[in-house]
């Protein structure tokens, strides 16, 4: 009997420490990735990396100014296209919707969130690249914009729902109509949470490579306007990492460090500061 108790107790200790080990492995992966990138990419980061165009193929040096600007342009288009639809759709779900329509929209949003990003690339290709007959910043921006919609929509909805009932009732009691109540009371009250959702969604698509491969494509020069193919940081990392030149590999590490830094800093700042005092604990 005592033997059995000892066995159970030791099993308890062993298994519980195993779960701790699992947690340790998972969490240390992030620090490992970050450390390895800093170690490999840090030494090749220089001022010219941010200000110069890529050097001609086979030559050393050069930078990624066009990729950085290209990524910013793509994000701008994604926000322009995806945020209004997501935001208004979220307002509809939380404030207006009836019975079947909200269920349908909610379910579609969740499923769209799970569609592989490469399939979104095919979609944007069919929608924009095929009619225009060439790759463009616009096509890439639309691909990313579509990916932003479901996240923004669901986030907006859940933060609007968290606004206390008493605020709505107070504004009705003061004689406001529904849209004034939503626009001047509920939306401002939920604005920090909604902004968090928007920024996290943009940070997520900022690192997307797959939907850009055959929409924004790539470009070794500046891309004027929005109708030409453009370079972007994730795609450059992919091309350089799989390319044959030693110098390209070094630059891929540096670009990887810049991209990871941007994504992590955005995530940390947004989660640490914007969510303070809101009910944002779900994600």
């Amino acid at each position, binding site marked *: 009997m005592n033997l059995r108790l000892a066995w159970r107790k030791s099993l308890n200790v062993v298994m519980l420490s195993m779960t701790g080990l699992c947690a340790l492995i998972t969490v240390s*992966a992030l620090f490992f990735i970050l450390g390895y990138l800093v170690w490999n990419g840090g030494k090749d980061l220089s001022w010219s990396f941010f200000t110069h165009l890529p050097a001609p193929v086979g030559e050393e040096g050069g930078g990624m100014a066009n990729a950085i600007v290209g990524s910013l342009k793509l994000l701008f288009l994604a926000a322009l296209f995806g945020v209004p639809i997501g935001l208004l759709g979220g307002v509809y779900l939380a404030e207006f919707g009836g019975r079947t329509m909200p269920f349908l929209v909610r379910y579609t949003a*969740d499923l769209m969130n799970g569609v592989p990003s490469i399939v979104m*690339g095919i979609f944007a290709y069919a929608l924009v690249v095929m009619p225009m007959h060439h790759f463009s910043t616009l096509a890439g921006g639309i691909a990313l914009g579509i990916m932003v919609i479901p996240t923004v929509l669901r986030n907006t909805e859940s933060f609007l729902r968290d606004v206390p009932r008493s605020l709505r009732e107070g504004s009705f009691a003061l004689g406001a*109509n529904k849209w004034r109540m939503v626009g001047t009371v509920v939306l401002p009250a939920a604005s920090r949470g909604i902004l968090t959702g928007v920024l*996290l969604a943009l940070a997520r698509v900022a690192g997307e490579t797959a939907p850009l491969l055959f929409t924004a494509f790539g470009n070794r020069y500046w891309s004027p306007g929005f109708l030409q193919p453009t370079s972007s940081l994730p795609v450059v990392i992919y091309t350089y990492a799989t390319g044959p030149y030693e110098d390209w590999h070094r630059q891929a590490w540096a670009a990887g460090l810049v991209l990871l830094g941007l994504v992590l800093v955005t995530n940390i700042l947004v989660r640490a500061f914007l969510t303070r005092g809101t009910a944002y604990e779900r994600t």
Partner: protein
Amino acid sequence: MTTTPNAITPSDLPAQPRSFLRRWSGADEIAHLITLIAAAALLLIAILLVYQLWILSAQARSQFGWSFFIKEVWDPVSGDFGAAPFIYGTLVTSAVALLIAVPLGVGAAIFLAELAPPKLSSALTFVSDLLAAVPSVIYGLLGVFLLVPLMRTTIEPALKEVLGFLPFFQGPSYGIGFLTAGIVLAIMIVPFVLSVSREVLLGVARDQREAALALGATKWESTWKVVVPAARIGIFGSVFLALARALGETMAVTMVIGNNPKIAASLFSPGYSIAAVLANEFSEATGNLYLSALIELGLVLFLLTFVLNGLARLLILVTTERGSGVLPS
């Protein structure tokens, strides 16, 4: 009744506000309509997505029919296409990923939900959320330059030494291949298993744990025999969700799988996945049939993830009232 200048007569009182109200209640309808259009736009996009994939894959579907799924040939020059190697590669890498990620993620979730003090638990969850935010091309970068050489020189020879009698661990070690892709995928999907499982475990009522402990169970017995079974449906949901992620993951897999359309039993051999072939060949596809075959692959991938995601949401919905509110976005 005498009227003083600042008294309000009953006759003006309703008149002004009423017309005011009427005007703005029209605006209510407009606001409703505008937000409805935005919500409907999402539905429209989803329908258009399915429609485009269906229409653009028509040529390949009519040419190859069901044989598309079992043929092992991929020959753009003679225009003969079969999806079997890609479907095989996608499934095998995802299976490897799940075998590693599910024990790791559920174990970590148990630690975070049951053992860790709340402050430590929320700090670790924060780190896991950040891990989920790391772009996949970064995983690919580490995969190419760190994991592939390590697999070639150390891990694969060691596996061959110990488990070489199994058909999965035979043949030459290239470093690239199914196993490497599966390991990279595993690291990528652990945060998803972890965060959903943790939420589901936390949702199990406190009484259940206390009842088990009061009956003399150890902490582990109460966790493993009471809490985990109570949360199992939601944990299955998290596994399906992670599987859907793994199937559709593109860049990291493309960079380490080897891009070789062959079916092989050995996990060491280079292979190909649906997402990887799309990433590599889509922008260079010449000819309508080639493009159409690639889009049919996209359709297959879409349907696979669509079904799995739907199933995952349903399972998680059953165990948590919040439903998809717990899902990482």
